[in-house]
């Protein structure tokens, strides 16, 4: 079956912003990607990219502090184009400060953003529309 036969979908879910919910983020993604006719390896990579982005919200937008806020993750596929939206109400993202560490600089940390960039075609930060503060969009063409 060709990948262009991927169905269109649009699903979203809210998650409390804390590290113990990252497993629920992964479960949601796996559940959604089960509906797509894409290879398991690609599904695993996409789950990793999404979980890393969710982790960055917990770590950076909220400094890993306790909050009652929720983040929203929206996964859409249209004509083989995957778009994943992340919405949060944490600290505004300072786009200029986002960079992954140099890959030959071996130290713990800074790998999450590198993984996201390796896996996805595009990573775009936008100002969120009310009530959201941050809106991150990850996209990938599944037809390639």
């Amino acid at each position: 079956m060709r990948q262009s036969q991927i169905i269109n979908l649009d699903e979203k879910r809210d998650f409390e912003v804390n590290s113990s919910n990252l497993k629920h983020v992964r479960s949601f993604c796996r559940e959604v990607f089960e509906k797509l006719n894409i290879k398991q390896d690609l599904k695993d990579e996409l789950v990793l990219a999404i979980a890393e982005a969710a982790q960055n919200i917990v770590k950076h937008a909220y400094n890993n502090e306790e909050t009652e806020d929720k983040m929203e993750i929206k996964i859409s596929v249209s004509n083989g184009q995957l778009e994943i939206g992340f919405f949060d109400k944490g600290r505004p993202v300072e786009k200029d400060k986002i960079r992954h560490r140099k890959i030959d600089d071996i130290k713990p940390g800074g790998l999450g953003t590198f993984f996201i960039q390796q896996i996805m075609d595009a990573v775009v930060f936008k100002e969120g529309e009310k009530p959201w503060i941050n809106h991150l969009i990850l996209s990938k063409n599944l037809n390639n």
Partner: protein
Amino acid sequence: MSYRVTEENNISTVYLDGEIDMDVTERAKEVIMPLIEAKKEVHLNLKDVQYMDSSGISVLIESHQKATELGTKVTLKEISKSVLKVIMMAKLEQILNLD
């Protein structure tokens, strides 16, 4: 994540099981680091780790660096396919001790 530790000939083997993400990395470090600080050779058996993210990879890097600093060694054993893929994505296969 769950774990068990076995000891044989001054080698401590830590069998990790489950998914290793930011939520469990402190617990993983609490198990692994004291063994390294006791200057034991440590084997991390990863055959039952189905998922590891950048936080888990950070634990592997920290363990490796601490062991090197203290003159001992951490070796990754029976690495599951999914973990190996993430190690390779991080381009660490030549840095960490893989067996």
